[in-house]
């Protein structure tokens, strides 16, 4: 039982449920107290002790069904009772049709696997597969590329070499039986392959997914294939959720243990300043204020989607965000981002200002004319864009004015450092007025950049 439960824990981890040692001990204790007789109760108890959210419950429930579809929890005892009967009955079955004692004698020369296959004893075969899978450590399987390796290893453990020899020998002596054996062998191959596929589904899911996410996180945002866009969006949303969890806590915190002497004395003046009522010091923190300028022109069209998505999530994390989008001119998009879902908001913004050729100069002029008041000494200004202004006047002087008013100016550029200053890129000129300049081409870099910005206020 313990062995099975341990394997189940590993399968659960594969399904993305975090099973810590402490939780597995709890589960063991729970199972010990409720027993294995009732399947639904067992399922409920494992869900109660291992899964810690609704999503995890769903994943674990599916995992339970898959895992115990083959392995009956009470298998060890049950099998011992049944196996001999099964063998006996199947012997009886095979004995009848084959009716020649000569052939049985011939079979005796064959290896155990060949005998098993010819006898068509399913109980023994599945037991042999189970043994082989634990012998080769099938639960260690992680990636789908390992399927072939594990299948062939399992077949080897089961004695396929001997079987091939037998097959060769039989081909000469008894072609009919050789054919039967060949068919049975093909069947066995399929069964083993299925067993490996199931094991991969159980144990390998998380690793495969992690690997895929890892690759995606480090992929260039501008070079993502269309079919990956949906996944990438999910990833960005995950990043946004993480940021929100980390930084959206209330920023008001009492400084416990520091007496505010002045307020205490004033409050207790009525009792001759005997301090019946105490007042404690509080610490105030800067509230994050962010002004985000996002380039949505044609040259960064493939990346601006993700930028907007991230700004959308910033609105959830930080209460005071004003966001602007520009290509040829600049408009404020705070309301759109705040009130609509990410998809709707992105579509509307792209419709309003998107896909034009960028003109950083006139966009900055727009900003200076209408929104300069939004920049205060507590503000962090984030500019997301490639600084390619189509050879038009970059108006770096406006950025300078902004930098003088703001707490910080952060420029996130989707292009690598190599290309800054090449062609129509005005990055070197803008760079002098920015506190932080970062290339921001992958999801991971994007996350780090935003995390740094928000944590500066913590």
């Amino acid at each position, binding site marked *: 039982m313990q062995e099975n439960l341990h394997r189940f824990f590993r399968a659960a981890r594969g399904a993305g449920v*975090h099973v*810590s040692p*402490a*939780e597995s001990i*709890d589960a*063991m*204790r*729970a199972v*010990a*107290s*409720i*027993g*294995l*007789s*009732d399947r*639904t*109760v067992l399922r*409920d*108890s494992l*869900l*109660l*002790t291992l*899964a*810690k*959210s*609704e999503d995890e*419950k769903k994943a674990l429930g599916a995992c339970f069904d898959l895992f115990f579809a083959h392995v009956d929890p009470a298998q060890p005892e049950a099998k011992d009772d049944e196996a001999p009967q099964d063998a006996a009955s199947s012997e009886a079955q095979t004995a009848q049709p084959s009716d020649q004692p000569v052939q049985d004698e011939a079979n005796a020369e064959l290896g155990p696997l060949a005998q098993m296959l010819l006898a068509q004893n399913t109980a023994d075969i599945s037991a042999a597969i189970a043994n082989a899978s634990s012998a080769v450590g099938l639960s260690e399987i992680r990636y789908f590329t390992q399927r072939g390796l594990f299948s062939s290893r399992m077949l080897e453990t089961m004695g396929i070499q001997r079987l091939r020899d037998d097959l060769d020998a039989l081909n000469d002596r008894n072609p009919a039986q050789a054919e039967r054996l060949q068919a049975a062998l093909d069947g066995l191959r399929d069964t083993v392959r299925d067993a490996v596929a199931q094991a991969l589904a159980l144990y390998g899911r998380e690793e495969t997914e992690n690997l895929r996410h890892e690759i995606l996180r480090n992929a260039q945002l501008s070079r993502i294939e269309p079919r990956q866009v949906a996944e990438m969006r999910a990833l960005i949303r995950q990043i946004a959720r993480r940021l929100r*969890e980390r930084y959206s*806590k*209330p920023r008001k915190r*009492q400084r*416990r243990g520091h007496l505010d002497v002045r307020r205490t004395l004033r409050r207790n003046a009525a009792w001759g300043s*005997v*301090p*019946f009522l*105490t007042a404690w010091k509080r610490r105030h923190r800067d509230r994050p204020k962010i002004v985000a300028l996002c380039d949505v022109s044609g040259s960064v069209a493939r990346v601006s989607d993700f930028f907007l998505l991230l700004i959308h999530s910033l609105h959830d994390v930080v209460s005071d965000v004003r966001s602007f989008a520009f290509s040829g001119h600049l408009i404020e998009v705070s309301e759109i981002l705040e009130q609509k879902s990410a998809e709707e908001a992105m579509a509307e913004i792209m419709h309003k200002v998107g896909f034009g050729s960028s003109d950083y100069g006139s966009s900055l002029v727009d900003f200076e004319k209408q929104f300069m008041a939004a920049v205060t000494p507590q503000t962090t200004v984030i500019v997301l864009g490639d600084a390619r202004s189509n050879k038009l006047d970059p108006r770096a002087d406006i950025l300078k004015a902004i930098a003088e008013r703001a707490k910080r100016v952060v420029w996130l550029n989707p292009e690598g450092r190599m290309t800054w200053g090449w062609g129509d890129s005005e990055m070197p000129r803008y760079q002098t007025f920015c506190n932080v300049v970062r290339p921001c081409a992958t999801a991971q870099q994007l996350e780090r950049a935003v995390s740094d910005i928000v944590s500066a206020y913590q």
Partner: protein
Amino acid sequence: MAASPAPSSAIAAIAAVEAGLAAQGYIASRQIATAVYLSQAIDKPILVEGPAGVGKTELAKAIAAWRGLKMIRLQCYEGLDEAKALYEWKYAKQLLYTQILKDKLGEVLGGAQTLHAALSQLHDFGDVFFSKEFVEPRPLLQALLEPEGCVLLIDEIDKSDAEFESLLLEILSDFQVTIPELGSIAAASPPTVILTSNSERNLGDALKRRCLHLHIGFPEQRLEERIVESRVPGISQTLRRQLVAFIHDIRSLDLKKQPSVSETIDWARVLVLLQAAELGHDLVKDTLNVLLKYESDIEVALPQVTTFVAKAQRQNIFG
């Protein structure tokens, strides 16, 4: 692993939990009963999550009533800290005592010749002002001090700050608290702890790890009928069926706030008060505000009322 009762008796015990809670008017699903049984068997708190009004708080009350234990409730809110949840020094009392005892101080220290002698005499009195007499136990400490054990309900834990969670960890895993001046105070008998959460924010892993995690969703139709039956005894079977079927249809709509079990019960009470024998179109329209709490939700639901009522009536014929 500790010696365990025979599994079959565990199944019986789960059934007993179900029956016991039912006797208190709480119709528990098998999953809930299993959780309650397990929390006792392996001494773990239960963390109950689910939408508002599905009976998370009721569960704690029902357990307390069933076992005949006292229930201590700690309502969480933003800014809740240890002084309000765990214990507090009776500061005013301490101060009052020092003021009164000021005069005695001269007598006590009268014999001392030097400052040093006076100090050592003072030390002999020990920390009288930080003794148990001056501790004001708040709900968490109260629960531990209860000699017969109790049901401790920590309600809406997701409303409290993340710091408060860490404060709970010691109580949840070891059933004890540490007061620096007094040392650790362990529970006389471990309380049954129920935490509830509306998933307003994600709880920390450390907290979740120490609990059994129970998710209560909206009940199935049968179960909800049984719940209504037990809570609103005067209701006829026909009306009960129609009402529950109607609510299940309403839940399939895209609403801001889905009607939950508590609303079902309220509505059933209203209908009984109005002496309705059957669900009717006008009746539903007039009382829909009991079920739906937002104007926009009522607007969404109103056009569907006729269809749903007809469907519920049909269901009654075949079901």
